[in-house]
Protein backbone atom coordinates (compact mmCIF):
# COMPACT_ATOMS: atom_id res chain seq x y z
CA UNK A 1 0.00 0.00 0.00
CA UNK A 2 2.79 2.32 0.92
CA UNK A 3 4.52 1.28 -2.24
CA UNK A 4 1.33 1.98 -4.18
CA UNK A 5 1.01 5.47 -2.75
CA UNK A 6 4.60 6.18 -3.51
CA UNK A 7 3.98 5.12 -7.08
CA UNK A 8 1.60 8.06 -7.59
CA UNK A 9 3.64 10.67 -9.33
CA UNK A 10 3.83 14.08 -7.78
CA UNK A 11 6.80 15.37 -9.57
CA UNK A 12 9.28 14.17 -12.06
CA UNK A 13 12.27 16.10 -13.11
CA UNK A 14 14.99 15.05 -15.42
CA UNK A 15 17.42 16.80 -17.66
CA UNK A 16 17.75 15.87 -21.30
CA UNK A 17 19.94 17.49 -23.86
CA UNK A 18 18.54 19.05 -26.96
CA UNK A 19 20.94 19.84 -29.74
CA UNK A 20 19.85 21.60 -32.84
CA UNK A 21 22.40 22.46 -35.43
CA UNK A 22 21.68 25.55 -37.40
CA UNK A 23 23.18 25.04 -40.83
CA UNK A 24 23.10 26.92 -44.07
CA UNK A 25 20.07 26.68 -46.33
CA UNK A 26 21.76 24.18 -48.62
CA UNK A 27 22.43 21.76 -45.80
CA UNK A 28 19.14 21.90 -43.93
CA UNK A 29 16.32 19.38 -43.78
CA UNK A 30 14.54 21.43 -46.38
CA UNK A 31 17.37 22.39 -48.64
CA UNK A 32 17.41 25.62 -50.63
CA UNK A 33 20.06 25.11 -53.27
CA UNK A 34 21.33 28.00 -55.42
CA UNK A 35 21.66 26.90 -59.04
CA UNK A 36 22.12 29.97 -61.19
CA UNK A 37 24.77 32.57 -60.33
CA UNK A 38 21.95 34.96 -59.46
CA UNK A 39 21.30 32.83 -56.41
CA UNK A 40 23.83 32.48 -53.65
CA UNK A 41 24.13 31.85 -49.95
CA UNK A 42 24.80 34.85 -47.76
CA UNK A 43 25.15 34.24 -44.05
CA UNK A 44 23.80 30.78 -44.76
CA UNK A 45 20.60 32.17 -46.24
CA UNK A 46 19.55 31.93 -49.83
CA UNK A 47 19.79 35.32 -51.52
CA UNK A 48 18.62 35.96 -55.04
CA UNK A 49 20.18 38.95 -56.66
CA UNK A 50 19.54 39.96 -60.23
CA UNK A 51 22.25 42.51 -60.67
CA UNK A 52 24.14 44.60 -58.24
CA UNK A 53 23.74 48.34 -58.08
CA UNK A 54 27.23 48.65 -56.58
CA UNK A 55 28.81 47.11 -59.67
CA UNK A 56 26.24 48.72 -61.97
CA UNK A 57 24.96 45.50 -63.46
CA UNK A 58 21.35 44.51 -63.51
CA UNK A 59 18.26 44.30 -65.63
CA UNK A 60 17.01 46.80 -68.17
CA UNK A 61 13.93 48.90 -67.60
CA UNK A 62 10.81 48.01 -69.56
CA UNK A 63 12.02 44.47 -70.16
CA UNK A 64 10.96 40.95 -69.36
CA UNK A 65 13.43 38.31 -68.26
CA UNK A 66 12.89 34.60 -67.73
CA UNK A 67 15.37 32.72 -65.56
CA UNK A 68 14.87 28.96 -65.41
CA UNK A 69 15.90 27.01 -62.31
CA UNK A 70 17.31 29.86 -60.25
CA UNK A 71 17.25 27.69 -57.16
CA UNK A 72 16.01 24.26 -56.21
CA UNK A 73 14.33 22.93 -53.12
CA UNK A 74 14.99 19.44 -51.86
CA UNK A 75 13.57 17.48 -48.99
CA UNK A 76 16.43 16.17 -46.94
CA UNK A 77 14.15 15.18 -44.11
CA UNK A 78 15.03 12.10 -42.07
CA UNK A 79 11.47 10.97 -42.61
CA UNK A 80 10.41 9.86 -46.06
CA UNK A 81 7.27 11.93 -46.34
CA UNK A 82 5.86 14.08 -49.07
CA UNK A 83 5.92 17.75 -48.22
CA UNK A 84 3.51 20.33 -49.54
CA UNK A 85 5.50 23.38 -50.37
CA UNK A 86 4.12 26.87 -50.84
CA UNK A 87 6.23 29.72 -52.18
CA UNK A 88 4.89 33.25 -52.11
CA UNK A 89 6.41 36.42 -53.46
CA UNK A 90 6.03 39.39 -51.14
CA UNK A 91 6.70 42.70 -52.89
CA UNK A 92 5.09 45.99 -53.78
CA UNK A 93 6.03 46.49 -57.40
CA UNK A 94 4.65 43.51 -59.30
CA UNK A 95 8.06 42.81 -60.80
CA UNK A 96 8.67 39.26 -59.60
CA UNK A 97 6.77 36.15 -60.55
CA UNK A 98 7.77 32.54 -60.07
CA UNK A 99 7.03 29.17 -61.64
CA UNK A 100 7.99 25.54 -61.39
CA UNK A 101 7.20 22.61 -63.69
CA UNK A 102 6.38 20.63 -60.53
CA UNK A 103 3.89 23.19 -59.23
CA UNK A 104 0.16 22.53 -59.18
CA UNK A 105 -0.23 25.98 -60.73
CA UNK A 106 2.14 28.25 -62.65
CA UNK A 107 4.11 25.49 -64.31
CA UNK A 108 5.75 27.66 -66.97
CA UNK A 109 7.00 31.23 -67.49
CA UNK A 110 3.82 32.00 -69.44
CA UNK A 111 1.61 31.44 -66.39
CA UNK A 112 4.08 32.49 -63.69
CA UNK A 113 2.46 34.01 -60.63
CA UNK A 114 3.24 35.28 -57.17
CA UNK A 115 2.41 31.97 -55.54
CA UNK A 116 3.16 28.37 -56.40
CA UNK A 117 2.35 25.12 -54.63
CA UNK A 118 4.57 22.10 -55.04
CA UNK A 119 3.95 18.60 -53.70
CA UNK A 120 7.60 17.89 -53.05
CA UNK A 121 9.00 14.39 -53.01
CA UNK A 122 12.63 14.95 -53.80
CA UNK A 123 13.79 18.04 -55.65
CA UNK A 124 11.95 20.81 -57.45
CA UNK A 125 13.36 23.92 -59.03
CA UNK A 126 11.97 27.42 -59.20
CA UNK A 127 12.21 29.82 -62.11
CA UNK A 128 11.72 33.57 -62.07
CA UNK A 129 10.04 35.98 -64.44
CA UNK A 130 11.16 39.55 -63.86
CA UNK A 131 9.13 42.21 -65.60
CA UNK A 132 10.57 45.70 -65.27
CA UNK A 133 7.82 47.39 -67.21
CA UNK A 134 6.74 50.68 -65.62
CA UNK A 135 9.52 50.78 -63.05
CA UNK A 136 12.26 53.36 -62.90
CA UNK A 137 15.97 52.75 -62.54
CA UNK A 138 16.85 51.66 -59.05
CA UNK A 139 17.05 48.71 -56.73
CA UNK A 140 13.94 46.77 -55.83
CA UNK A 141 13.59 44.20 -53.12
CA UNK A 142 11.16 41.38 -52.56
CA UNK A 143 10.89 38.39 -50.32
CA UNK A 144 10.15 34.79 -51.12
CA UNK A 145 8.21 33.17 -48.33
CA UNK A 146 8.73 29.43 -48.34
CA UNK A 147 6.48 27.34 -46.18
CA UNK A 148 6.11 23.59 -46.06
CA UNK A 149 3.73 21.26 -44.35
CA UNK A 150 3.94 17.53 -43.98
CA UNK A 151 1.82 15.65 -46.48
Amino acid at each position, binding site marked *: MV*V*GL*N*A*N*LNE*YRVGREVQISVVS*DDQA*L*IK*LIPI*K*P*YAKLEDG*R*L*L*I*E*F*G*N*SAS*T*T*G*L*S*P*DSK*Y*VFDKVFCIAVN*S*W*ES*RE*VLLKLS*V*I*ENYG*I*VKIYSPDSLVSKSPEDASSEIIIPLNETSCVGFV*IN*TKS*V*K*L*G*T*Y*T*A*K*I*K*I*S*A*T*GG
Partner: protein
Amino acid sequence: MSGKVFGTLMLLTALILAAKIGADFASYEAKRDVRIAVVADDQELIDLEPNLPYAYISADDGKLYIDISTNNPNYQDGFGEGVSPDSTYAFDCMFKVSNNLWEEVPISVTVSSDNSKVLVYSGEEEAGSETTFIVESGDSVCVGIVISAESYSPGDTIPSVLTIHAEKSTE
Protein backbone atom coordinates in the same frame (compact mmCIF):
# COMPACT_ATOMS: atom_id res chain seq x y z
CA MET B 1 10.16 0.15 -4.99
CA SER B 2 8.97 -1.97 -7.90
CA GLY B 3 6.02 0.42 -8.20
CA LYS B 4 8.44 3.37 -8.57
CA VAL B 5 10.31 1.52 -11.26
CA PHE B 6 7.03 0.67 -13.02
CA GLY B 7 5.90 4.29 -12.82
CA THR B 8 9.21 5.52 -14.16
CA LEU B 9 9.06 3.02 -17.02
CA MET B 10 5.52 4.13 -17.89
CA LEU B 11 6.67 7.72 -17.93
CA LEU B 12 9.66 6.98 -20.14
CA THR B 13 7.40 5.04 -22.52
CA ALA B 14 5.07 8.01 -22.71
CA LEU B 15 7.98 10.35 -23.34
CA ILE B 16 9.34 8.12 -26.09
CA LEU B 17 5.90 7.95 -27.71
CA ALA B 18 5.60 11.70 -27.49
CA ALA B 19 9.06 12.08 -28.99
CA LYS B 20 8.12 9.83 -31.91
CA ILE B 21 4.96 11.77 -32.64
CA GLY B 22 6.97 14.97 -32.48
CA ALA B 23 9.53 13.58 -34.88
CA ASP B 24 7.04 13.63 -37.78
CA PHE B 25 7.66 16.66 -39.91
CA ALA B 26 4.89 19.17 -39.44
CA SER B 27 5.86 22.46 -40.94
CA TYR B 28 8.63 24.75 -42.06
CA GLU B 29 8.69 28.42 -42.86
CA ALA B 30 11.38 30.78 -44.05
CA LYS B 31 11.63 34.10 -45.82
CA ARG B 32 14.45 34.85 -48.19
CA ASP B 33 15.44 38.08 -49.90
CA VAL B 34 15.28 38.87 -53.57
CA ARG B 35 17.10 41.96 -54.82
CA ILE B 36 16.72 43.34 -58.30
CA ALA B 37 18.81 46.15 -59.70
CA VAL B 38 17.19 47.91 -62.63
CA VAL B 39 20.00 49.66 -64.44
CA ALA B 40 20.54 51.42 -67.74
CA ASP B 41 20.54 49.34 -70.93
CA ASP B 42 24.31 49.65 -71.29
CA GLN B 43 25.03 48.34 -67.78
CA GLU B 44 22.92 45.24 -67.63
CA LEU B 45 23.33 41.53 -68.12
CA ILE B 46 22.51 41.81 -71.79
CA ASP B 47 23.93 45.19 -72.70
CA LEU B 48 22.44 47.40 -75.38
CA GLU B 49 25.30 49.73 -76.03
CA PRO B 50 25.07 52.73 -78.37
CA ASN B 51 27.85 52.72 -80.97
CA LEU B 52 26.93 55.60 -83.26
CA PRO B 53 25.87 59.02 -81.96
CA TYR B 54 22.35 58.47 -83.34
CA ALA B 55 21.92 55.99 -80.54
CA TYR B 56 22.04 57.02 -76.90
CA ILE B 57 21.04 55.94 -73.43
CA SER B 58 18.46 58.22 -71.88
CA ALA B 59 19.58 59.71 -68.61
CA ASP B 60 15.93 59.77 -67.55
CA ASP B 61 14.88 56.16 -67.99
CA GLY B 62 18.09 54.31 -68.86
CA LYS B 63 16.69 52.98 -72.15
CA LEU B 64 18.45 52.83 -75.50
CA TYR B 65 17.01 55.24 -78.04
CA ILE B 66 17.84 55.66 -81.69
CA ASP B 67 16.93 59.16 -82.65
CA ILE B 68 18.04 60.92 -85.82
CA SER B 69 16.62 64.32 -85.06
CA THR B 70 17.51 67.45 -83.18
CA ASN B 71 15.97 65.88 -80.06
CA ASN B 72 18.95 63.55 -79.73
CA PRO B 73 21.22 64.85 -76.92
CA ASN B 74 24.22 64.14 -79.17
CA TYR B 75 22.92 66.58 -81.75
CA GLN B 76 24.97 69.73 -82.21
CA ASP B 77 24.42 72.78 -84.34
CA GLY B 78 25.53 72.11 -87.87
CA PHE B 79 24.77 68.40 -87.75
CA GLY B 80 22.24 66.93 -90.13
CA GLU B 81 18.78 67.11 -88.63
CA GLY B 82 17.34 63.93 -90.12
CA VAL B 83 17.21 61.75 -93.21
CA SER B 84 16.16 62.92 -96.65
CA PRO B 85 12.78 62.10 -98.18
CA ASP B 86 12.84 59.25 -100.71
CA SER B 87 16.24 58.10 -99.52
CA THR B 88 17.69 55.02 -97.90
CA TYR B 89 20.31 55.13 -95.19
CA ALA B 90 22.24 52.19 -93.82
CA PHE B 91 24.04 52.55 -90.50
CA ASP B 92 26.50 49.77 -89.73
CA CYS B 93 26.78 48.94 -86.05
CA MET B 94 24.22 51.42 -84.75
CA PHE B 95 24.35 49.65 -81.39
CA LYS B 96 25.88 46.55 -79.88
CA VAL B 97 24.32 43.71 -77.98
CA SER B 98 26.67 42.15 -75.45
CA ASN B 99 26.40 39.09 -73.30
CA ASN B 100 27.39 39.73 -69.70
CA LEU B 101 25.26 37.00 -68.19
CA TRP B 102 26.70 35.60 -65.02
CA GLU B 103 25.98 32.08 -66.28
CA GLU B 104 28.64 32.55 -68.98
CA VAL B 105 26.54 30.86 -71.67
CA PRO B 106 26.02 31.92 -75.29
CA ILE B 107 22.71 33.54 -76.12
CA SER B 108 20.61 33.71 -79.24
CA VAL B 109 19.42 37.27 -79.81
CA THR B 110 16.66 38.39 -82.15
CA VAL B 111 16.20 42.07 -82.91
CA SER B 112 12.97 42.89 -84.72
CA SER B 113 11.39 46.08 -86.01
CA ASP B 114 7.68 46.85 -86.17
CA ASN B 115 8.07 49.24 -89.09
CA SER B 116 8.92 48.00 -92.59
CA LYS B 117 10.72 51.29 -93.21
CA VAL B 118 13.20 50.51 -90.44
CA LEU B 119 15.11 47.29 -91.03
CA VAL B 120 17.83 45.63 -89.02
CA TYR B 121 20.81 43.46 -89.83
CA SER B 122 23.88 41.91 -88.29
CA GLY B 123 27.08 40.72 -89.93
CA GLU B 124 26.94 40.43 -93.69
CA GLU B 125 23.29 39.45 -93.94
CA GLU B 126 20.67 41.40 -95.83
CA ALA B 127 18.57 43.79 -93.75
CA GLY B 128 15.09 42.61 -92.81
CA SER B 129 12.36 43.11 -90.29
CA GLU B 130 14.34 40.93 -87.89
CA THR B 131 17.82 39.60 -87.41
CA THR B 132 18.98 36.72 -85.24
CA PHE B 133 22.53 36.09 -84.09
CA ILE B 134 24.53 34.35 -81.40
CA VAL B 135 26.44 36.32 -78.79
CA GLU B 136 29.09 34.36 -76.96
CA SER B 137 29.69 34.97 -73.28
CA GLY B 138 31.65 38.19 -72.78
CA ASP B 139 31.30 39.09 -76.44
CA SER B 140 29.23 41.66 -78.33
CA VAL B 141 27.60 41.80 -81.76
CA CYS B 142 26.80 44.89 -83.82
CA VAL B 143 23.31 45.63 -85.08
CA GLY B 144 22.96 47.79 -88.17
CA ILE B 145 19.87 49.73 -89.21
CA VAL B 146 18.51 50.57 -92.64
CA ILE B 147 16.07 53.47 -92.83
CA SER B 148 13.94 53.91 -95.91
CA ALA B 149 12.34 57.33 -96.21
CA GLU B 150 10.59 56.42 -99.43
CA SER B 151 7.22 58.18 -99.75
CA TYR B 152 7.95 60.38 -96.74
CA SER B 153 8.02 64.15 -96.91
CA PRO B 154 9.98 66.73 -94.94
CA GLY B 155 8.37 67.18 -91.53
CA ASP B 156 7.30 63.54 -91.29
CA THR B 157 8.66 61.20 -88.68
CA ILE B 158 9.38 57.50 -89.05
CA PRO B 159 8.49 55.91 -85.73
CA SER B 160 9.54 52.37 -84.95
CA VAL B 161 9.99 50.09 -81.97
CA LEU B 162 12.81 47.59 -81.91
CA THR B 163 12.20 44.47 -79.85
CA ILE B 164 15.24 42.65 -78.56
CA HIS B 165 14.65 39.07 -77.49
CA ALA B 166 17.38 36.86 -76.08
CA GLU B 167 17.38 33.27 -74.97
CA LYS B 168 19.95 30.66 -74.14
CA SER B 169 21.52 29.39 -77.33
CA THR B 170 21.00 25.74 -78.18
CA GLU B 171 23.64 25.76 -80.89
